[in-house]
């Protein structure tokens, strides 16, 4: 049910984002989505790729420090208030979201959001009980050629 997310440390200066993306592109690895969190001094690049093991190896070999985290992809109704409903479910269960970002892929009337929880398993239970759909890796990647 969980997705493997790769995170990389980047310094916040021109040109730093391109290098890791080029390194994995050179290996023919396609990016599913990414998110960039930054402060004035540094940033964290988070990536979702199908072949995360190979991508991790490529990046580490090229010298990056790569962190592996489990995240949860959730189908969110693509209409006003859609995300608010999901958040309400999490809030009432007392679950804290470390961070979240939207997946670049959209399916019909659904958008996919990626959530990072301290502990993903109880969050998955809560979301499923509330009738929300968790998108696993197989389902997610089946939408890509």
């Amino acid at each position, binding site marked *: 049910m969980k997705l493997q997310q790769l995170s990389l*440390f980047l310094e916040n200066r021109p040109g730093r984002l391109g290098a890791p993306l080029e390194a994995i592109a050179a290996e023919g690895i396609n990016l599913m989505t990414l998110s960039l969190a930054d402060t004035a001094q540094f940033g*964290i690049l988070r990536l979702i790729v199908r072949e995360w093991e190979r991508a991790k190896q490529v990046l580490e070999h090229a010298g990056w420090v790569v962190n592996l985290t489990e995240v949860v992809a959730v189908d969110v109704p693509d209409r006003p208030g859609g995300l608010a409903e999901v958040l309400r479910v999490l809030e009432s269960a007392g679950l804290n979201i470390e961070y979240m970002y939207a997946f670049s892929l959209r399916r019909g009337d659904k958008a996919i959001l990626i959530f990072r929880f301290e502990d993903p398993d109880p969050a998955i239970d809560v979301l499923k009980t509330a009738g929300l759909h968790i998108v696993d890796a197989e389902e997610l990647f089946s939408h890509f050629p």
Partner: protein
Amino acid sequence: MQTELWNDAAGGFHPVSAPDFLPEARLQEVQLRRLRAVVGRAYAHVPLFRQRMEGLGLTPEAIGGLADIAKLPFTVKTDLRDTYPFGLFASPMGDVVRLHASSGTTGKPIVVAYTREDVDVWAEVMARTFAACGLHRGDILQNAFGYGLFTGGLGAHYGAEALGATVIPVSGGNTERQIMVLKDFGVSALCCTPSYFVHLIERAREVGVDLRELPLRVGVFGAEPWSDAMRAHIEAEAGVKAYDIYGLSEIIGPGVASECAVQEGLHVFEDHFYPEIIDPETCQPLPDGAEGELVLTTLSKKAMPMIRYRTRDITRIISEPCACGRSLRRIRRIGRRSDDMIIIRGVNVFPSQIEAALLEVEGTLPHYQIILTRERGLDQIAVEVEVTAEVFSDKIRALEAVRARLAQAIEHICGIRVDLRLVEPRTIARSEGKARRVIDQRNI
């Protein structure tokens, strides 16, 4: 029991180590005889030394006993620069068989010279060094000290050969090749700078080589100060026993002092290099046990005798007997040099303090660099620290917390607030020789 400590797997210590065990009275007799000879030699052949002696109203006859060494004038690094290149030589070039030069971070390098006899003494003290580190005939030593003008490579090479070990003269750099040689040649001992070995461990891990699974047993490290925590890191990550050795080009190169199996200080090969400790401010001699600047006199050097050379290294002499049985006095591991001191906004800061703070927070030593700048007349200090897998997180909050903890630890230890910057792995230049920790961009 004693045998175990200074013996090795080959059984019996190498005859080259015999002077390590001279009785004190006999050692002092040798020292005095050699001191009188070297002072006479310098007086006769080195004009600068002769002038200074005359300025003090002294002749070589002033040396009646070992304690009289305190009457003699000091030699400092600038003397070597001022007389560049050959001004302190006491031998004609016809007797000089080798020249080395230090890299010299500012201005001209310093040049040092060796006669045939000096090269033999150097090989002897380096053989005694390797023997003290537990090496013997049959060991395969990968010598990753740089060969060339730097004294490390050739000094270690001749010493290991004199001991009867097998030397692989791989020299510094080309880390991939180092790893290949380590793996393929059954290397049992390696010598290089400790910072380069940390880099080698890192690179080996990246290419999937676990040094702990190789026959590598001993690491002999020198040419720069390194902490006990760095030693623990090296020993755990590479599965070796890591020894600290000490030397400097002005005196001979590596081979001035070495740890033994006990690892409670470094035995000075004081039958060739006479150690004193002085107060660096007043230049007054201090008793054994007191901390101060190490001053060395070369007792047997021919081509370039150094009388009371101020090393700038801060240590103390340990005169208590060592459990290994060596009668040679020891110096405590050198943590700092008096000229490493950074004065920033009136506060004295040593790189070793910054290192201690980083270690305290991270557990192992990350690659770091200290950058000094001056903005509108005010000194600024920044510490760049490479992010390691141990501290990296996908959460901004966690990284900010690491940064704050590092800055706080430095402020706590050094009493100064620094601009702490987390930087990407492998962005701080790796040195194949001595690590360059401080980049001073101030125009003073």
